[in-house]
């Protein structure tokens, strides 16, 4: 699978559209919906696992960074450098060691999602009003109770924003995993390009990808409303 970037493309030579290569074709969808669904499933699975693992790591890290101010600089610095490194380069670093496997893609996706969730969770935690924390302390809340029952619930808007941005960008980023053969719908996008510029496939996979991102985003908005009933009143 790795030798995909082998389309012979000459610069400047415009591809003749022709009637035989439409952007959208029902025939393509009818004949290939199995392939499309399989790619969609792989895409969804990679996204969900990556975001879930990232959230499990990022939220405790953000809490640590919030509690110990000195760690904040380090964590933000390291994630900032990571964030500047292009995804293709990251996969290039990982692939020689982890091989041509889904794990390679997952590690990359988790690292990028991690950054997003940490930063947003930290922003959320910082936005908890000092008076609220103060009065909770005055009422006798211990450290754990303060975190669990006051700070984290009040930081939920930030956490949810982080999860939403991380999810949407992860869906888009999965396509880059095509390099190691596990790019979900990205395999179909690049595959369609390399298979004689098959427009119907490129377009169908792209639309499925954007659609998946929007559906997941909407789902997270609904989850956010369910777990933060107090924000509903403000927007209504």
């Amino acid at each position, binding site marked *: 699978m790795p030798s995909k970037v082998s389309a012979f493309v000459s610069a400047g030579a415009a591809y003749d559209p022709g009637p035989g290569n439409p952007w959208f074709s029902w025939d393509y969808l009818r004949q290939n919906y199995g392939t499309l669904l399989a790619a969609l499933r792989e895409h969804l699975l990679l996204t969900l696992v990556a975001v879930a693992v990232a959230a499990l790591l990022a939220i405790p890290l953000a809490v640590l960074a919030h509690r110990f101010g000195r760690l904040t600089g380090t964590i933000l610095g390291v994630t900032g450098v990571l964030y*500047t490194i292009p995804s293709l*380069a990251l996969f290039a670093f990982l*692939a020689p060691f982890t091989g041509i496997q889904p794990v390679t893609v997952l590690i990359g996706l988790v690292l990028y999602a991690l950054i997003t969730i940490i930063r947003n969770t930290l922003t959320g935690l910082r936005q908890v009003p000092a008076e609220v924390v103060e009065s909770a302390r005055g009422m006798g809340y211990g450290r754990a109770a303060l975190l669990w029952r006051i700070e984290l619930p009040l930081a939920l808007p930030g956490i949810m924003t982080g999860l939403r*941005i991380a999810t*949407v960008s992860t869906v888009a980023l999965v396509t880059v995993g095509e390099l190691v053969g596990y790019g979900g719908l990205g395999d179909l996008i690049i595959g369609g390009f390399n298979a004689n510029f098959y427009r119907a496939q490129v377009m169908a996979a792209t639309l499925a*990808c*954007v659609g998946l*991102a929007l559906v997941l985003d909407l789902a997270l908005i609904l989850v956010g409303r369910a777990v933060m009933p107090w924000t509903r009143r403000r927007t209504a």
Partner: protein
Amino acid sequence: MTIIHDAILWLNDPLNWTNPNGIIARTEEHLWISGAAVGLACAVSWPVGVWMGHVGRGGPAVVAMTNLSRAVPTVALLTILPLTVIGFGPPAIILALALFAIPPLLANAYLGVREVDPQVRDAGRGMGLSGWQLLRSVELPLAVPYLANGLRIAAVQVLATATLAAYVNGGGLGMIISRGFGLGLNAGGGQVLAGGLLVALLCLLADGLLVLVERAALPKALRRTDHRPPRSAADPITPTP
């Protein structure tokens, strides 16, 4: 670790630098494609963003655009544009990269003008400045830190994204990585690692340089009051694609 050894060997071969498709040629290609994309994006987004900030309209549109652009995979746009009338070659790549650079530039230009202290704006109006004069001599200078911040974010993002042009054989440093993968990991692992290293270094270097540019672009009068944008309007918490 033989792969690390292979990578060092690959980097140490002068031919890998000077070949027609060597590191030097690929870096030049990478830089000019990225430069053109950022230039194009600036030419479009700055006037529009500044104008929208000046009249105070279009904020929700900017936010919606930023969110939507996150959902569109760069790979998809890089694949689709060459198949349209634009045709294969650098123009399609440049256009695809420019489209992704527009949201951070636009959002920062908008926010930069929008965030000007209303009292300062009122003072300008009270002095009899027309809308155009107000924009030119009050709002624009005060928006410079935001414009510079947007430029840095967009430029680093484009440099990073330009590596993905390799998926459609579009040139740039990403080609070194994809060619390495083409050889298989046993033979090309060193090249893959070396290519990744080069791209990462280029992006980190560009980021560092642009931080300096950002500082230099800060108008003198603003330097002492620490009047810097706290956070980019474009939400820098999105990973580089």
